[in-house]
């Protein structure tokens, strides 16, 4: 078919008309081969403007459209829709930005006009090589798999279920509630943990949209966003296959094992506990029915709480240890009012609204704070000795009846294996890593898999809930029952004929969107997973990887004409 390119220059009111000599632009491009019409219009994005464009496409039987106007950010979609209405494939269109990057930045009208001509010529040259692209639609399953039934997993499940999504909540333990279940009270308001948790657990159990699978673990995940197939195995029992559209990973964390740090005397010196153990001792359904006792059955008269145990080794601040250390001090003070509590800290981490007050409140109850470095715990005279270097650098020793170690947090065991099964990344600390700290804080590198709560990094309950709600919200917004998914159209493809099977593309793809077909010895792009960055097209040594709508030819011709 004969090429008929229509070129339309928008005056954009006075915005472009005053800065660019539009007549000169039209004269410069109207004689270019293939250009059937070149005209100006006062405001192409207005209703009349769009009508004018549509009629022109039809009237002239245009095969390609170039509009010289504002930034693609403003109206690329507007004009693509016009094309569609006029029966022209919207990808046979190119927008030349002669406003933001021309009229508005150049004082001199001659210079601006020359630059505008260059832009329009380049757009004409590029549009010739455009290839019609078709929108794709795929069926999507709105059901969701939630892994881990701690506060984050529970919250996400409840929110998803409230919008009539079927949720499979998989938990490897026999009961749900996660770490919070073991807590008596919660900082900073010291309210009862069960008062928060029990109603939620009840809601989960009673909710018909939530299928709870305890003592179960995920063994395999196949497929992609909208269409995952998951294998879940019940302990010692049967395997089940689930079809879901999205996954929330909320597997939480665990206490770092301090027995590897001999300086803390853990396991060797009596009456040295980790914070988790102390929490259990304090719990009404713990081994001592909630009584805080020393090994010999007496109540302690003095307790030291050591902060930052394992921070150096782990290489990060676990964020909640300072706060739960304050909580433990409050437990102690309320159970044994005359007990002397001393916190050995190196830096206090009290971010956020309520925590400064929580600290002052705790201090006000008669809790001492000592800034200390190089803390070592040893057998002392009639108790436990805390050896430390004080703020002035002096070595000091103090004796206590009991020592509690505020240990660092690390990812729940099994995280590495799960990351492999799900094909999502972990950071150097071992926690699952978000797609982007700011732009995708609960997404992962695999579309449709989200992370929430402490699986992403140590955090408090309120932040865990925020993330759970965010993950659920993302899923609710993207997977709507009955609605099909429209994957990105401008994705990559790999030519079977040119691919030499070097797998370079696979190594640069951030989305695991490319796999290797062993049979044909070539790389294959999964068009649903591909986000269309074009990295593989730049990396491919044989020219087999093509980035649709940003092909080598298209960019090359735009470039050559720009420089002519």
């Amino acid at each position, binding site marked *: 078919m004969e090429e008929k390119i229509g070129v339309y220059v928008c005056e954009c009111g006075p915005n472009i008309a005053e800065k660019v000599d539009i007549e000169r632009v039209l004269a410069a491009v109207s004689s270019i081969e293939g250009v059937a019409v070149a005209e100006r219009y006062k405001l192409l994005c207005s209703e009349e403007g769009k009508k004018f464009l549509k009629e022109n496409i039809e009237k002239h039987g245009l095969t390609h459209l170039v509009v010289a106007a504002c*930034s*693609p*950010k403003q109206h690329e979609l507007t004009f693509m829709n016009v094309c569609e209405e006029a029966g022209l494939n919207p990808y046979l269109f190119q927008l030349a*930005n002669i*406003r*933001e*990057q*021309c*009229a*508005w*930045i*150049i*004082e001199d009208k001659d*210079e*601006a006009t*020359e*630059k505008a001509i*260059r832009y329009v010529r*380049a757009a004409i040259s590029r549009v010739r090589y455009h290839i019609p692209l078709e929108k794709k639609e795929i069926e999507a399953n709105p059901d969701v798999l939630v892994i881990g039934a701690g506060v984050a997993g529970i919250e996400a499940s409840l929110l998803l279920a409230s919008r009539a999504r079927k949720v499979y909540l998989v938990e490897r333990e026999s009961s749900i509630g996660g770490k919070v279940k073991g807590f008596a009270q919660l900082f900073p308001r010291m309210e009862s943990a069960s008062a928060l948790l029990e109603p939620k657990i009840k809601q989960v159990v009673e909710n018909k949209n939530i299928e709870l699978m305890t003592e179960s673990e995920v063994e395999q995940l196949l497929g992609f966003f909208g269409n995952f197939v998951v294998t879940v195995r019940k302990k010692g029992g049967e395997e089940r296959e689930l079809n879901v559209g999205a996954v929330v990973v909320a597997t939480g964390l665990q206490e770092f094992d301090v027995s590897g740090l001999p300086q803390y005397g853990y396991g060797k010196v009596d009456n040295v506990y980790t914070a988790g153990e102390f929490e259990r001792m304090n719990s009404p359904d713990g081994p001592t029915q909630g009584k805080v006792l020393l090994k010999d059955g007496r109540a302690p008269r003095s307790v030291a709480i050591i902060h930052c145990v394992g921070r150096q080794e782990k290489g990060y601040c676990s964020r909640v240890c300072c706060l739960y250390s304050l909580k433990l001090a409050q437990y102690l003070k309320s159970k044994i009012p005359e007990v002397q509590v001393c916190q050995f800290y190196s830096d206090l981490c009290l971010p956020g609204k309520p925590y400064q007050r929580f600290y002052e409140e705790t201090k006000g109850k008669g809790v001492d704070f000592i800034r200390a470095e190089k803390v070592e715990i040893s057998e002392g005279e009639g108790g436990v000795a805390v050896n430390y270097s004080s703020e002035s650098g002096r070595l000091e020793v103090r004796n206590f009846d009991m020592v509690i170690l505020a240990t660092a947090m690390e990812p729940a065991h099994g995280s590495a294996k799960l990351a492999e099964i799900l094909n999502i990344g972990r950071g150097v600390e071992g926690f699952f890593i978000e*797609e*982007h*700290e*700011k*732009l995708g804080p609960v997404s992962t*590198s695999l579309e449709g898999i989200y992370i929430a709560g402490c699986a992403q990094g140590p955090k408090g309950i309120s932040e865990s809930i925020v993330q759970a709600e965010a993950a659920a919200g993302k899923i609710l917004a993207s997977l709507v029952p009955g609605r099909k998914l429209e994957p990105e159209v*401008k994705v990559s493809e790999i030519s079977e004929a040119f691919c030499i099977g070097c797998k370079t593309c696979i190594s*640069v793809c*951030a*989305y695991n969107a490319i796999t290797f077909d062993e049979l044909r010895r070539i790389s294959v792009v999964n068009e649903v997973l591909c*986000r*269309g*960055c*074009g*990295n593989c*097209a*730049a*990396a491919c040594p044989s020219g087999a990887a093509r*980035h649709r709508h*940003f092909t*080598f030819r298209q*960019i*090359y011709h*735009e*470039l*050559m004409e*720009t*420089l*002519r």
Partner: protein
Amino acid sequence: MEEDFMPRIIGFLCKWCTYAGADLAGVSRIQYPPSILPIRVMCSSRVDPLFVISSFLRGADAVLVAGCHPGDCHYQRGNYYTRRRYAVLRKIFEELGLEADRLRLSWISASEGRRFADVITDYTERIKKKGPNPVKKEVFL
């Protein structure tokens, strides 16, 4: 050098950050030299080194590759690849005796309209001092 020499600088700008930053410079009506000729790509990692070389052979006086700040690429790690390819490209330029200072890599975010204009102004001044790309005359196309 010639007084009125206005260099032609090809700018490969990623859609999410630098292209948007350039738009912002326009919206803020910050004036800068017309030297820059933008080519919009989805991510700076789309910039095939061949595009850069072709630009020079076609007579560009300089090339700018610009994208999101490290860590801010909308495709996670794209700009790290860009950075590596850029380093290799500079090496190749040096090896071949081409002027590597006609290449520039910049990270400019969507909110840095002022910085975009400053980078272009500064780069243009430098290239003006250097004069036109000699390759233009030497290579037969």
